[in-house]
């Protein structure tokens, strides 16, 4: 930890803050985030520091619960993307040949779609829901992971310790899992952290377009989306959740930058 710079420490503190808020959302939030009250619509009665939205729900409580849902969606989406990306990238880079060619063309195809539009198409096919949002973000994100991991695996394939393992009769599975994968781990951690930032933005964009989770569930993107119709009267409804998204993304981006420098200084110039 001592190697972290000031911004790095700031990012770690920010991340811990978000995680704690998400974990203890039920305890911190002053009200039930889905409790509506026609009396409170677009008003700020005492006990509601950020006021109430168009259904009379407490904005602060929704922001707090939104942290949980947003982080959950981002985490699971990136986790799926990471598993697929690792499997594809490691085998493509390690085995090479026609297998590499085939997998990389598939990666090219997925990277050829503008990401949000691909996510839109996937959401349309799968129908609305939490799982759809997670899958749409994962399907859009795995290709980039695969390409970066493949590059690393390709380099490691001809490393001396890998050749030594081969000479000792290690199987391909064993070489990949015990020699190639551990050496890709720093890279994987950085990709995952940066990926959280894009996943949060993607979730927000999908919610903004009405393709996110059920609008009654509190997500930051969904709140911006419903709030924008009341921009003239109460701009806070969309600005507050928008700022939360911005802060969360800054935190993950800064953390990713920092981890890249700390874990993998040799590679810095590559990206």
């Amino acid at each position, binding site marked *: 930890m001592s190697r972290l710079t000031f911004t790095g420490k700031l990012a770690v503190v920010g991340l811990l803050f978000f995680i704690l808020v998400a974990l203890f959302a039920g305890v911190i939030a002053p009200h039930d985030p889905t409790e509506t009250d026609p009396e409170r619509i677009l008003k700020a009665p005492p006990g509601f520091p950020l006021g109430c939205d168009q259904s009379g729900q407490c904005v602060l409580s929704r922001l707090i619960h939104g942290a949980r849902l947003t982080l959950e969606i981002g985490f699971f989406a990136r986790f799926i993307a990471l598993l697929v990306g690792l499997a594809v990238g490691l085998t493509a880079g390690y085995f090479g040949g026609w297998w590499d060619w085939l997998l990389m063309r598939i990666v090219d195809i997925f990277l050829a*779609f503008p990401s949000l539009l691909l996510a839109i*198409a996937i959401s349309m*096919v799968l129908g609305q829901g939490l799982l759809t949002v997670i899958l749409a973000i994962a399907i859009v994100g795995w290709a980039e992971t695969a390409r970066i991991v493949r590059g690393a695996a390709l380099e490691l394939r001809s490393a001396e310790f890998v050749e030594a393992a081969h000479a000792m009769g290690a199987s391909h599975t064993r070489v990949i899992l015990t020699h190639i994968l551990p050496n890709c781990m720093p890279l994987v951690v950085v990709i995952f952290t940066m990926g959280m930032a894009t996943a949060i933005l993607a979730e927000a*964009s999908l919610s*903004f*377009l009405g393709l996110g989770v059920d609008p009654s569930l509190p997500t930051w993107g969904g709140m911006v989306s419903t709030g924008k119709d009341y*921009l003239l009267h109460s701009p806070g409804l969309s*600005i507050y959740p*928008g700022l939360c998204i911005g802060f969360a993304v800054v935190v993950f981006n800064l953390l990713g930058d920092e981890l890249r420098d700390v874990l993998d200084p040799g590679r810095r110039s590559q990206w």
Partner: protein
Amino acid sequence: MLEYTLKRAAGTIPVILGILAISFVVLYLIPGNPAETLAGPRASPESIARIAREMGLDQPLHLRFINYIVKILHRDLGRSAINDRPVYTSIREKFPYTLKLSILAMFISIISGLIAGIIGALRRGSFIDRLCTVFSVSGISVPIFLTGLILLYVFAVKLRWFPISADHCPNPWLGLLLPAITLGIRSGAFLARIIRSSLIEVLNQDYIRTARAKGLSSWRILTHHALLNALIPIITVIGLDISSFLNGSVIVETIFGIPGLGRFTMESILKRDYPVIQGVVLFSALVFVTINLLVDLLYAWINPRIRDEILAGKS
């Protein structure tokens, strides 16, 4: 260069086929039977079957895929499920708005990225450099709908410098300015980071020291030696911009009321007009692939070393 061009162009063929395959699968999987939709709610099963036959829906899958490709080659991207309008006609009508918006956004992106990047590299570690870094980190992190809503609130609602909807703007370019800033700032922030780091790298090279030793002014070194070498990352980012503009136009055009491809997509999402969405996604992917091809060719033309490496088989 010709050999490289041919090789690179041939490389896009499998990608384009893959894009077509994915969008065909999407079309195949989307809910609802297109023949039933076209026949209307009170059609008899016989007439639905007849329409399905006419549309070729009774043929085996691989034949349908071939038919699909042939149709697309004839610029037939399908028809709207709501009003039966050809998707291609709508796209041709809406795309110019999005194109204009993207060009303006790219202009803003390059200008702001160059200014912030150059200042950051020349005055490294100074207060103004930190300010530029804050600008670029927040520019990358703040979602474009937030930037858009804030700009709209401040400049259109509070200050009334701009109309709330670009539809009602007397000057078409003026109405595009706020949305273009929204899109451009994000990629400008990205560009600033890349220009800063590549300039810093270039400025430490031996030939820059030589140029300085010759007594050339900082400005001349910057424009004649350093920036030319920073051109490559700029071109890369411009290629990536196309994707982010196509993505962003969906959100920005909705916020600012521009009748372009993005808002068209948004309206089709709200109406659950699946064939239109599929057509727009396909169109955008093809535009993106074409632009990337052009960017790569430009890249190789500027830097022959890259071209030779790829031709030698080190792809």
